[in-house]
C-alpha cells in the first residue's frame, strides 16, 4: 500500500540529495561527506533506486533526444511549466537543493526580466488544502502535478530552464487567487483532505519552503539592491522635531532607546501593546510588527502597526535572513518603500538590512550581514508616501 510516508521519503530524496553527477564531483567532497553523514537515504542503499531511475531517464533522453528539450528559453509565457536552471542548485546545511519545476504566473515584464513563479510537485498524494491539483483537461505536455499557491516567488528570467508543458490561463488565475485566499478552490479542482496531526504533508510543506527559499534567495540578492526608501525627505528635520511629528499623530508610541539620528527615529519605533491586535499575541506563529508611516505631501498623517507573519528565519555565518508576509497593501503600490534593521539594544547599534518585497505575493525577504542576537529586534518600516501630484 502506497503511503504518504513513502511519498515523503521520495520527495526528500528528490529535493535534497545530490544526484549522481554531483556526488562524484571532487569539488564537493566535503559537502558530499557531510550529506552522507546526515542523510538516512544516502548513507544506506535506499537512495540507489532513485539514482538508478535518474540515470535511466537521462540515458533515455539522450537516446530519444526530444525536441521539447531545446525549447526557446526566451519565449517565456504565463502558464508554462518549466524546470529551474540546474546551475542554481546549491548546497545548504548539508543538503543539495535540486531544481524544482515551477509554473510561470505572469508574462515577462517589458521593463525588466523578473518572472513570478509558483513551485509545483508531481505526487498529488502530498497535496493538502491550499494546494491546487491541475486536472488533465487543463494541462498539456505533463503528467499530473499540483501547484503550491503559498510558495510563490520572483526569479530572473535566465533562471528558468527547460519547458515541460503548459496549463490553461484559468489555472494561473486561480493560483493567484488562492495565494490571496487559500480557502478558495475552483470547481474543477480536486478536493484535498484536511491535514492531520503529524501528517507527512506538513513535513513536505517545510521541505518545499526550504527548497523555494534556496532558489528565490539568489534572485532576491540581485533584486533587493533596487529598493530604496524616502525617509530622506526628513533629512532637514532635527531628531526632536521628527519625534514630535510622530508623537502628534500617535501619542502612545515609544522608542527602543532614545533616537539620535533620523534613521533611528524610524527604526526604533515601538507600539504600545494595546495598539496591536489580539491575534498577534494569541497566535503561536512568530511575527514582526512593522511600523507603517503614511505620508501625504511630506506630512506624517498616521503611524500604524502592521502585523507581518514570519515564514522562515535563518542564521548562519553569512548573516541572518528572515522571510514573511506584509499583508494589507494592494498590488503595484508604487508609493511604498521599505527599510529593515536589526536593533541591538545592549550596544545601542543599528544594522540596516537588504530588503525585497513582492507586491503580488506580498512576501518579503530581509537579509542582514550579521547574526541576530537573542535580544536583538528586527524592525520593518513601511513608508506609504503619496504626494498631491500622484493623486491627480
Amino acid at each position: 500500500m502506497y503511503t504518504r510516508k513513502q511519498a515523503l521519503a521520495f520527495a526528500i530524496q528528490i529535493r535534497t540529495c545530490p544526484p549522481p553527477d554531483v556526488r562524484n564531483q571532487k569539488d564537493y567532497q566535503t559537502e558530499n561527506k557531510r550529506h552522507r553523514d546526515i542523510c538516512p537515504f544516502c548513507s544506506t542503499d535506499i537512495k540507489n533506486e532513485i539514482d538508478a531511475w535518474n540515470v535511466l531517464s537521462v540515458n533515455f533522453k539522450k537516446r530519444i533526444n526530444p525536441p521539447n528539450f531545446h525549447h526557446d528559453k526566451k519565449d517565456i509565457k504565463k502558464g508554462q511549466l518549466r524546470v529551474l536552471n540546474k546551475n542554481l542548485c546549491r548546497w545548504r546545511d548539508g543538503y543539495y537543493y535540486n531544481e524544482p519545476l515551477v509554473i510561470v504566473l505572469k508574462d515577462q515584464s517589458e521593463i525588466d526580466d523578473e518572472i513570478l513563479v509558483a513551485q509545483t510537485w508531481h505526487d498529488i498524494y502530498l497535496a493538502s488544502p491550499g494546494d491546487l491539483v491541475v486536472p488533465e483537461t487543463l494541462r498539456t505536455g505533463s503528467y499530473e502535478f499540483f501547484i503550491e499557491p503559498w510558495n510563490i516567488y520572483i526569479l530572473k528570467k535566465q533562471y528558468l530552464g527547460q519547458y515541460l508543458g503548459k496549463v490553461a490561463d484559468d489555472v494561473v488565475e486561480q493560483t493567484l487567487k488562492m495565494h490571496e485566499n487559500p480557502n478558495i478552490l475552483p470547481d474543477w479542482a480536486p478536493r484535498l483532505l484536511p491535514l492531520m496531526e503529524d501528517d507527512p504533508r506538513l513535513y513536505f510543506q517545510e521541505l518545499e519552503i526550504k527548497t523555494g527559499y534556496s532558489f528565490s534567495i539568489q534572485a532576491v540578492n540581485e533584486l533587493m539592491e533596487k529598493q530604496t526608501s524616502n525617509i530622506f525627505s526628513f533629512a532637514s528635520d532635527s531628531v526632536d522635531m521628527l519625534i514630535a511629528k510622530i508623537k502628534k499623530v500617535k501619542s502612545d508610541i515609544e522608542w527602543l532607546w532614545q533616537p539620535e539620528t533620523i534613521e533611528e527615529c524610524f527604526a526604533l519605533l515601538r507600539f504600545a501593546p494595546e495598539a496591536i491586535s489580539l491575534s498577534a499575541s494569541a497566535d503561536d506563529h512568530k511575527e514582526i510588527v512593522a511600523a507603517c508611516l503614511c505620508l501625504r505631501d511630506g506630512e506624517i498623517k498616521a503611524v500604524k502597526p502592521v502585523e507581518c507573519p514570519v515564514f522562515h528565519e535563518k542564521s548562519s555565518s553569512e548573516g541572518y535572513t528572515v522571510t514573511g508576509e506584509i499583508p494589507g497593501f494592494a498590488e503595484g503600490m508604487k508609493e511604498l518603500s521599505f527599510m529593515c534593521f536589526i536593533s541591538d539594544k545592549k550596544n545601542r547599534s543599528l544594522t540596516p538590512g537588504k530588503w525585497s518585497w513582492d507586491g503580488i505575493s506580498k512576501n518579503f525577504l530581509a537579509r542582514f550581514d550579521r547574526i541576530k542576537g537573542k535580544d536583538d529586534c528586527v524592525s520593518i518600516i513601511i513608508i506609504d508616501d503619496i504626494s498631491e501630484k500622484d493623486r491627480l
Partner: protein
Amino acid sequence: MSERITPKEFEQWLLQPENEKLLKIIADRLYQKMIFQNISLPGLNLQLSDAREIYQELLAFILQKPGIQETLLQGARGIASYISTGFLNHVIERVRSKEESKDIYDNAWRYFYRRVSVVLSESSEVKTYKSRNRGLCFGMSDTKPNTIILAEDLMAIAFPDDIPMNYKAMTKKKTILKLAVYFWKESAAATFEPHIRISIRDFVSWVNRYVRLSASIESFPLTGNSEEEKYKFNPLINKADDPEPDSEKLSYIRKWAVNFLNILQGEEKKIFYYYECQGLKNNEISALMGKKANLSYQRDKLRARLKTFLRPLEWLSPEPVWKNERPDLDAFRFFRNRLCEKLEQTIMVNGG
C-alpha cells in the same frame, strides 16, 4: 512529448549493458521492499531466491507499462513512485489473478480477494468500476469522485459490531456485501466524498486489519460489552510488539542513529543526551552545562528535529491517520539506545 521509439527499439535500449545494470539496481531495492512487505511472486519463495527473479519481472512490467517512454522523459521525479509502486501493486495483482491461482484455496487472502470481486461485481447493491491504476473498485454513484484519497485515509474506520471477526463468516456473500456497504458509507462520511470509489484491494486490506484472512481457525475470547473491551484479545487489534527487529532492519537503524547524531551540533548533543537519554530535569541540566536559563526551548526544538528526521523512515514512525497503528516500538527503542550510546561516547571523548 509525442516522440517515441518502437517497442522493439525500446526493449533493445533497456537491454543495453548500462541500462540493464541500472534496472538490476532497482530490482535489488524492490526485492528488499518485497521482503519487508512480505510480498512475493507466484511460485517464488523470496527467502530462497534473489533479485534476479525480480529483475526479469520488472523488465516485463516496464515493457508492457502504457506511457512508460513519456514517464521516463519526465525525469526521475515521478518515475520512482510511479513505476516502483506500480510494480509492487502489479506483483500483488499477479498473485491474485486467475492465471496464477490454480490452488487458490491454499491462499485464503487470495481467495477472499477474488470472492469479494465476484460478489461485488454480481451485486445490484453496489456498482463496480475498473481503474487503470487501482484495479477493480466499487461505489454507489456514476458521478466521478473529486477528492484525492489514499487507502491510509480509510484504515482508521472501525470494524462494525454486528459482524463477527472471523474468516469463515467473511467469505459469505451476505457478509461481504454488508461489510462493503458499511465500509463505503463510513469512507464517504470520513472523507466527505459522496461519490467515493473504493478499490477492492484497499477494502481487503482494511478487513485484514481486523480479521486474519486465513482458513485456519483463530479464536479469541469475546469479553465485555464495549467495542474496545469486546475485542480486547483480538490478536490483530492488540498486536504484541515485535520481539526484536530483524537483522536487515537493525543495519538500517544503526546507520540512522549515527545520521541523527551527526545532525546534532555542538552543545545540542549534550542537551539531547541529558534530556532524552539521562532523563535529567531542567535545573540539573542547566547546572551541568553552566547555564542560568532553562534549556527546555532548545530541547523542544531538538525533539521537533528528531521528529522531522524520523517521519519519512519506515518502522520508526507510525502512519498518523491509523489511530490504532503503532510504530515498531522495539525498532524505536533500539534506535534510541543506539543513539544514546553514541552520544555518550562522543560526550565522553570531548570531556563532557
